[in-house]
């Protein structure tokens, strides 16, 4: 089985973001200088993919990543230490303002170009959301472009059953889960958080991954994704009032009381 994870980089979550209007539309100030990480939603998908591959010998994990090549190279030095995968790099913007359809088209094209790929024995993984691109639509469009109609969003668990069918638990409204059974691949799974912790940095895994990462980066295809036809009326960050408290060992009752007070306003 092939498991293809779609995921790219986002600014390090603790960075201070400032929207600006650049030559090609909205952008983040100093975006190329901001430290970047693998999108945490995609990260969950990657770790689940690796776990699934480990349980199913012969499986292979690909990571399809669309982002500025230089930044991808940097981020991969950390990601590569986590789990085994083969990188398929696309050189283009990973900004939060690119059109989900254009991004999905580039990713789907890259997946289609994987030599010898049997789509009927393939699962497409990604984040159901993105820390920078919150449309939640990219994975669905990737699936549509690949002709994969079995799509699941907000996935928290996947189990391959004895008959080869996929038992999938999705988040649905009202804080509940929906369990579906999909007869067989292909399927698109947009992962929520999954159930796995972030793997430890493993230098041996990093070394093994690196054999493919640098060649992939060197031949990364330019993918000039844009903001498409989208017109941004305005871009702003949520307003915030900084009342920092760093307090530890607070009793649960006190935390609960503070939350209740805050919710009640």
């Amino acid at each position: 089985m092939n498991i293809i994870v779609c995921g790219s980089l986002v600014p390090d979550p603790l960075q201070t973001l400032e929207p600006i209007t650049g030559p090609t539309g909205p952008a983040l100030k100093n975006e190329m200088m901001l430290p970047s990480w693998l999108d945490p939603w995609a990260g969950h998908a990657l770790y689940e993919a690796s776990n699934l591959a480990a349980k199913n010998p012969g499986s292979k994990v690909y990571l399809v990543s669309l982002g500025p090549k230089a930044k991808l190279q940097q981020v991969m030095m950390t990601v590569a230490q986590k789990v085994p995968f083969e990188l398929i790099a696309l050189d283009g913007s990973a900004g939060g303002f690119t059109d989900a359809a254009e991004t999905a088209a580039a990713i789907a094209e890259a997946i289609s170009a994987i030599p010898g790929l049997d789509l009927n024995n393939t699962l497409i993984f990604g984040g159901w959301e993105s820390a920078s691109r919150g449309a939640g639509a990219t994975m669905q469009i990737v699936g549509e472009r690949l002709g994969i109609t079995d799509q699941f969003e907000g996935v928290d668990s996947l189990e391959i059953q004895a008959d080869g069918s996929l038992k999938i638990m999705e988040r649905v409204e009202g804080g509940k889960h929906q369990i579906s059974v999909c007869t067989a691949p292909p399927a698109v799974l947009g992962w929520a958080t999954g159930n796995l912790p972030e793997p430890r940095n493993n230098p041996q895994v990093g070394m093994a991954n690196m054999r493919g990462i640098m060649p992939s980066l060197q031949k990364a295809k330019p993918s000039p994704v844009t903001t498409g036809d989208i017109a941004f009326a305005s871009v702003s960050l949520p307003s915030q009032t900084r009342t920092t408290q760093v307090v530890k060992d607070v009793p649960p009752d006190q935390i609960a009381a503070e939350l209740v007070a805050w919710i009640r306003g």
Partner: protein
Amino acid sequence: MSEAIDRPQMEADIVCVGFGPASGGFLTRLAAAAFNPDGSPALESPSMPGMPLQVMCYERADDIGFGVSGVVTNAKAIRESFPDLDPSQIPMAASVGEEKILYLLDPTGASRRPLAMRLADTAIRAAGSLLGLKNDAMELPWTPEFLHKDGGIILSIGQFTQWVGSQVMATGAVQIWPGSPVSEAIIENQAVTGVRLMDQGVTKDGASADGYMPGMDVRAPLTVVADGPVGAIGQQLDKEFGVPDGHHLHDWALGMKFVVDLPAGCELKPGTVLHTIGFPEPEIFGFLYVHPDNVASFGIFVPSWFDNPTRTGYRYLQHWMQHPYLWQYLKGGKLRSWGAKTLQESGKRGEPHLAGDGFARIGEGSGSTNVLTNSGVDEAWATGVQLADAVIELLKAGKPFTKENLDATYVKRRRESWVEAEGRIAEKARDGFQRGVIPGFIGTFLTGLTQGHINIPGKPGATHTRVPTLESYYGSRISSDEIARIRKDCDTKGIAASGVLMDKVGWPEIPFDGELLVSHQDALLMGGKVQAPHGYADHVTFPYSADCESCGCKICVEMCSGQAITPGENGRPVFDREKCIHCGACLWNCAKPDPKNPELTIVSFQAGAGGLHSGEN
């Protein structure tokens, strides 16, 4: 080394500890020589014949370029590595333009100035505009040549090292692995045979826990130690092999800085370099460098010869930036980034054994910093290039990395270089500061003007030999009873005493504005973006708790850049790894000698994961 744990093993040819300017120079030079123009390996792997050279670099921070500092450098060696260097290709780099040295008078009345300086201040104020006094600052009419950085570059070392890392990794000759702290060098039969990475999945005490993964042993014929002035491997080698006779590590400084968006319309031009002396305390130096796009980095150095038992970096930095001369430019600015690091200020006299069987040391931790010209990055880079040239020579000759061979190639190159020549001139430049601030300034100028022939002598001593008691330092300004009350109160609250004591002696309250004047904890969150991954042991520990309890000053708490060390039960310091920025100030600010080796302190500072997450420093 003996233990029962079955550790993963890996073979490499060269393993490098730490990625900063020194390893940047080393790997840039090595990578350039690794392949022939047709792409075939020019340097063959001795451990894997037929394969290209296997070079690994392990960086403890979560990404390359985190946790280092901004500088102005004459970039002599860096330009040799990149002859076509265009600063505009490096984010935040600017060619040096105007350079000024400013003497800052004390606008608060709280600065602890010696009599001679107070008299000078009075005279300067009386002369006023005749001496160019403006905004309580006087521009020195003349800057000695040794302090000039004509033709140099202002750099964000974070951005610079990321740029270098990208270039090096793109060659495919080198792998740089961030988030990979090295816990120790593997030493067998007096030879370094590789390094051991840190265990993961352990408790704060280092005991195995869920997801335990023993750190891998990476065996290599050559270990390049470039882990900076307070690096764990440098410390280990110093303990194992000692330091050359007459050398010591007594002089240090903490550099703390902000990177800010200057207010719109600020007159400071990119390339401007300001150095300050005189305020907030006479021993504290300041700097301000202007990057492109209306961005500046500025900060202060708090040296080990500032004999204040409650010395601190953050509070003094806030007073420094509010000095009227600086505030005219900074008011209305906004914090982008914040960080701090230790500087090895012993320079050439802090040089360890540069090479041994299986290892070589480069960069700041190898004593390359020039303490006269206040320059370290270019020197560190140069030592890396020198080692790379030596390694290339030895590989091509098929010779092993023995002490003898490394001495004959690397150490020889270094001894014959400008780094050595200028380092020798600078060797005694700071000695005068052991006698006081004014002798220190005079001594530095004499050293510079006479090319090191005339100095004001002084004997640098370890912190525990020189720091006075709180009662002695504050003298009549705060009574002993009051000090005891403040100390007890702060211990109870688990906070440092420096803020309360500074309030008490007249330092004005900080008018927090949420943008530039922010609380220390907000600086961590807004500027440093400090974080630490789970599953690693505490890298700062206090093995002699009884000595800590009896310590009257606890400079480790006061000088902790991230407020990661606080007073705990019975006054014992408590460490919070999630706030640590790995500056290493605790290591040299401890006022208690190690019972086994009085050259060391009773704070253990080892390698650890996490820390700053800002790449702009």
